[in-house]
């Protein structure tokens, strides 16, 4: 038996994203439920969100993945594994990854979905990194794509004001030096009922206070540990890109992390909470706007239903 030559490290080669064109403002929501712009902004920090009218999860994933692939300079033939992080497919079978790979002209790659809810992208990224370093794949297309709008009760202001649609993607490939740090991941299944879709006829339900308490007290140690395992002091971070759950959660974790020089992602203000898509979407948009530079270090931290969480330090492509 033998094993292939393995890469010393893996890194994110390129990013891409997609947002549906349809914008839903807080004033739009106020027309159909008991809420208003001030109420929404003060509680979750969102001004507007995007909602997919015609696009499916697979459609958004394909566009974001295609953009990341184009930006990487690789051809579809160079990709041999596709991972889609999602928890909002319209149907459970087939998975999104094989469909998306086919649409992008990626021939017969390994293809699977990851359901770790809002932490999904970080789980998929860790899996991609391990696959490249272990010789299971050469280049991996990692996509977070969600259509929360089809799982939300649009008369329930506790969830409808928060969740949104979109997709973000990253191409992960081999590297001489490490570009994706060790993942710190875990779960708290004792709180599985805090965020759930009970059955196929139900909408997404969230225990807001339980999730908020957990997110603002249990996650900054995970963030600090991800930095420590990568040998990076928080003061060295150029960016902190947590899951865009709620602006108050983002800011509470950022305050406790103490990464003074880091640009903190606040993409939720205009994108809403897009679950597994929020981290690559936010980071891709930060790179596009020139807010962060190539080669800088970013801490990504996903957390959500399960409850699940995962974080790692990455080099910005």
């Amino acid at each position, binding site marked *: 038996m033998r094993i292939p030559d393995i890469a010393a490290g893996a890194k994110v080669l390129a990013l891409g994203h997609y947002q549906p064109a349809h914008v839903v403002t807080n004033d739009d929501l106020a027309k159909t439920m008991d809420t208003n712009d001030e109420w929404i902004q003060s509680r979750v920090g969102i001004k507007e969100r995007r909602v997919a009218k015609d696009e499916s999860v697979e459609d958004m994933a394909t566009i974001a993945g295609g953009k990341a692939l184009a930006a990487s300079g690789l051809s579809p033939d160079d990709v041999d594994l596709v991972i889609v992080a999602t928890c909002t497919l319209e149907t459970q079978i087939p998975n999104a990854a094989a469909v998306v790979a086919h649409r992008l002209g990626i021939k017969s790659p390994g293809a699977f979905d990851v359901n770790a809810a809002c932490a999904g992208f970080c789980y998929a990224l860790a899996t991609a990194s391990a696959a490249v370093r272990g010789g299971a794949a050469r280049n991996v297309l990692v996509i977070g794509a969600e259509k929360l709008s089809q799982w939300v009760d649009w008369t329930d202001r506790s969830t409808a004001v928060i969740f949104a649609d979109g997709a973000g993607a990253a191409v992960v490939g081999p590297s001489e030096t490490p570009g994706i740090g060790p993942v710190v991941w875990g779960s708290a299944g004792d709180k599985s009922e805090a965020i759930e879709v009970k059955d196929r006829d139900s909408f997404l339900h969230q225990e807001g206070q339980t999730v*908020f*308490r957990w997110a*603002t*007290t249990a996650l900054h140690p995970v963030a600090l540990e991800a930095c420590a395992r990568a040998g990076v002091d928080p003061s060295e971070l150029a960016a902190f890109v947590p899951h865009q759950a*709620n602006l108050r959660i983002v800011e509470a974790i950022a305050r406790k992390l103490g990464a003074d020089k880091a640009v903190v992602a606040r993409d939720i203000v205009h994108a809403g909470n897009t679950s597994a898509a929020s981290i690559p979407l936010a980071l891709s948009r930060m790179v596009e706007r020139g807010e962060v530079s190539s080669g800088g270090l970013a801490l990504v931290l996903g957390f959500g239903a399960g409850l699940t969480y995962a974080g790692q330090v990455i080099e910005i492509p």
Partner: protein
Amino acid sequence: MAATEQEILEGLGKIINEITGIPASEVTPEKSFVDDLDIDSLSMVEIAVAAQDEFGVEIPDDQLKNLKTVKDVLTFIQG
């Protein structure tokens, strides 16, 4: 020695001021968190977490929703 009600009230006033900006002097026993002080459900969680650190009494979420007034919290913390 356990803190007196007045000491808890002062500590709670300080916590509420830090989290919401509401002057501590407005935090008096008869006030309702939602109706009088306009404190939302997430700020209540932050107050509960800070109160736990300050007074060593855990206020779980299922209890938190029953604590409508400042007096309710004072009573809960005093056990």
